[in-house]
């Protein structure tokens, strides 16, 4: 089969000049007969909009920020690439891909799903990675693929209950303070239990008393910036300043403010 444009018996159509070529490549055309060609160019460009799927190795290395041992493509300022010889890592990867290329399509898809990004996603979704690595890998996967991880707790109700037990609300304390506030002088209320109250109070304490359990991880120091996090743009990415605290431009007008005393 000869390549297009090589048939000597073919009647050559009007040859495109450089200016028309550039217009077509930009998606513009003045002659209606060029519309199909511009549509092909557009379809070609649309292939660049399809999502890419990174390999498991790439995702892991991005999450760790570690590319040690990978054959580096060295930059040549004169143009082109001054590549280092391919190392064992690259050789193993290419041998694997050659075997893959010989498989049927369905087999390739099955292998790809088992060994590629989906498998890594599965491992990550199963929580099989250490916590810090789990978070990093999930973050990278969510950024570079359409996959998202559900962070909602599986049993919301149980968590609400646990929060209440942890001291989010102490019903007994609220009740007593409310009673003191509204009926401070009512005889027999302050500190005197009604028959049965102590028993009920003991029951409530066992259910609602704050349970100060130590946290699993030390709290992060909010004053120390994370050097690996993307710096916040002042005013937010979209220039939203609603969260910024405005500095006062005038002295407060309350009676507590005393202007500086002027000496004669």
């Amino acid at each position, binding site marked *: 089969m000869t390549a297009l444009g090589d048939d000597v018996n073919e009647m050559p159509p009007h040859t495109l000049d450089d200016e028309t070529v550039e217009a077509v490549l930009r998606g513009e055309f003045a002659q209606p007969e060029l519309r199909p060609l511009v549509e092909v160019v557009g379809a070609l460009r649309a292939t*660049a909009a399809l999502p890419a799927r990174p390999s498991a190795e790439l995702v892991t290395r991005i999450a760790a920020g570690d590319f040690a041992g990978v054959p580096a493509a060295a930059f040549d300022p004169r143009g082109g690439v001054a590549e280092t010889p391919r190392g064992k890592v690259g050789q193993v990867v290419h041998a694997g891909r050659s075997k893959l290329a010989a498989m049927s399509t369905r087999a390739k898809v099955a292998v790809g799903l088992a060994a590629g990004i989906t498998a890594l996603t599965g491992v990550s979704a199963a929580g099989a990675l250490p916590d810090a690595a789990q978070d990093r890998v999930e973050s990278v996967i969510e950024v570079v693929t359409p996959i998202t991880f559900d962070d909602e707790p599986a049993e919301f109700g149980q968590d609400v209950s646990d929060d209440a037990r942890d001291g989010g609300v102490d019903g007994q304390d609220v009740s007593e303070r409310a009673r003191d506030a509204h009926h401070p002088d009512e005889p027999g209320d302050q500190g005197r239990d009604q028959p049965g109250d102590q028993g009920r109070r003991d029951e409530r304490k066992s259910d609602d008393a704050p349970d100060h359990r130590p946290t699993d991880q030390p709290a992060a120091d909010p004053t120390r910036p994370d050097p690996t996090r993307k710096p916040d743009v002042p005013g937010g990415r979209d220039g939203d300043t609603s969260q910024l605290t405005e500095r006062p431009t005038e002295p407060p007008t309350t009676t507590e403010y005393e202007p500086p005393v002027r000496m004669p």
Partner: protein
Amino acid sequence: MTAVRFVLREGALTIGNGFDEVLDAARSRAPWGFERLYTDLAPVVTGYLRMHGAAEPDDLASEVFLGVFAGLGSFRGTEAKFRSWVFTIAHRRLTDEWRRSSRRPVVPTDPLILDRPDGHVEDEVMEVLGSRRVRELCAELSSDQREVLLLRVVADLTVDQVADVIGKSSGAVRALQRRGLNALRSRLAREGVPL
């Protein structure tokens, strides 16, 4: 006659003014820097490889980025220069792949339909069919014509950048893109068109 223009690009493919910051972050091994560079260029690199008929364009693109990220310390230049560098690497990886497999680019059966994460099957089928048709057309071009058109259209490189990538003069690049488009136009005219 009034010129007609298609809106062919959805959203910017370039990082712009923040490129230096992103590059510095990646050099500091911050994951977000690598993510940004990858999400910016991976779709176009993968599309370029796919249109060239690479058997495993996603894997090959991942190899390209492994090499790019491992060699970031040696890179110096603007975002445009970075883009050229990435595609130079992709071009060489592809050439290596062809030499190893000793075969011409083919149009593989598309697994894209089988493992899309969402459920818009009809739209995806039309998209894949259109993509396949374009690949068939590109496969019939000479390798140099196809290379130049893909780097101009998919990679969005200038004539001079393409010349750097493939190691030819700017004049040769212009001649190849002209011949390539003329060849496509002739093919479309013979078939009565469409995708």
